[in-house]
């Protein structure tokens, strides 16, 4: 089976292990990923904080490119990109906005591309196959952390439930793991201010890590490169806010599934993390 693929900038840079693990498990599950040609950055927080038309035009160009390439469905593993593409498609249902934006990008745009996140791709196309191919059950107690952009705003994304989501928990159970109940599943880690206000972000991320660690999770599982790099690379600054420093790793759901499918830690980019992954 073939599906369009928008990696986004993080997956090509500081979160390349997310890309490596998405590509590796897609291959293992017989999903062919077709990258959108000449894709650009979605604009992320910076664009929508500064200029609305820019924040709609950058994602619109990506969607228009995918349409021109004949893709019907595109998987977007980065929660931030997924959110921006979904919000843009929703906003461009408004005729005035669509006219303005298509005039800016100078490309035809129909708006009928189906945009899905990595959990939706696995739920729709690979649940049976994953179950069938688990060779090394991921027998760990973990905290599934959804963050914000994967599930909110619910009216537009229509994915999972807005409080206490379950899709990642179900995936972890499927590969033999035990998801814990905890309080910070959907609390914001603050990644948007990671560089500009590291002090605040360390506090927010500290709350998340503290709860997961105190409830004896052996790892935090994520589906967002912002959450991952924030909780992993900023661990030094975060631990300075905690009375008991935490050393639990933060890994992508695709890495957890990859391990269960018997792929090597190297193929899944687990050696790239700042906090050692000893699972």
């Amino acid at each position: 089976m073939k599906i369009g693929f928008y990696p986004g900038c993080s997956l090509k840079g500081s979160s390349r292990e997310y890309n490596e693990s998405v590509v590796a498990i897609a291959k293992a599950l017989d999903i062919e990923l077709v990258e959108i040609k000449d894709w650009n950055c979605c604009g992320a927080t910076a664009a929508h904080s500064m200029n609305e038309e820019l924040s709609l035009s950058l994602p619109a160009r990506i969607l228009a490119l995918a349409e021109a390439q004949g893709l019907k469905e595109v998987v977007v593993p980065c929660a931030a990109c997924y959110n921006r593409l979904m919000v843009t498609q929703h906003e461009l249902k408004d005729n005035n906005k669509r006219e303005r934006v298509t005039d800016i990008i100078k490309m035809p745009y129909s708006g009928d591309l189906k945009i899905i996140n990595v959990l939706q791709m696995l739920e729709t196309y690979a649940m049976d196959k994953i179950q069938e191919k688990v060779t090394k059950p991921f027998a760990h107690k973990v905290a599934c952390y959804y963050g914000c952009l994967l599930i909110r705003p619910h009216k537009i994304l229509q994915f999972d439930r807005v409080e206490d989501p379950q899709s990642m928990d179900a995936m972890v159970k499927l590969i033999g793991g035990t998801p814990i109940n905890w309080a910070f599943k959907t609390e914001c880690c603050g990644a948007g201010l990671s560089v500009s206000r590291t002090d605040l972000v360390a506090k927010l991320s500290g709350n998340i890590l503290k709860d997961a660690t105190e409830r004896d999770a052996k790892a935090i599982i994520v589906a967002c490169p912002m959450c991952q790099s924030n909780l992993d690379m900023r661990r030094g600054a975060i631990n300075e806010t905690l009375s008991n420093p935490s050393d639990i790793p933060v890994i992508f759901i695709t890495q957890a599934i990859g391990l269960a499918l018997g792929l090597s830690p190297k193929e899944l980019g687990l050696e790239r993390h700042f906090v050692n992954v000893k699972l």
Partner: protein
Amino acid sequence: MENKNKISGDIHSHTGVEVARCYQCGKCTAGCVLASEMNFPPSYLMRLLQTGTEENYDRILRSNTIWLCLNCENCLGRCPMEIDIPKIMDYLREQSLNKKKVNRDANPIVSFHKSFLDSIKYTGRLYEVGLIAAFKARTFRLTQDVKLAPKMYLNGKLNLMPEMIKDKKGIGQIFSKTIDNPKTKNK
């Protein structure tokens, strides 16, 4: 009364949000992770908007509140009236920038956004090394995060060269017709 109509009218026409619908239950503030760091929290901002005075509007545009908002969308998720506060925040930030009223404490945040967008404008994709270098140059925070860089490099997380897209002209045009277009500044 004239101003009252103008401020809430402008917000309504640009965001579709009716500020009068807020009945001050405070759930947005209760769920906001940065409420305690803000000059005033989101429910208070809604109340200030409802008063409709230029004075209160000016206070909002000069506050750190609009820049600390992470757009995590928790307020919207929990609002019994489904008021899209994050969308109002986007609009207010743009107004604050255009009217040159950005809160001084928010300068690093705006510098980060500008550095981010500059990087995309020239290469089409985010070039993280360039972003950090530009951010440091804008804020003079030369030593920040220098401890992270070598490990990022060793772990293969830093590209030393930017990824360029082919259609750089197309991206350039998107910028010149939107954020770099002087005509859009006064809308």
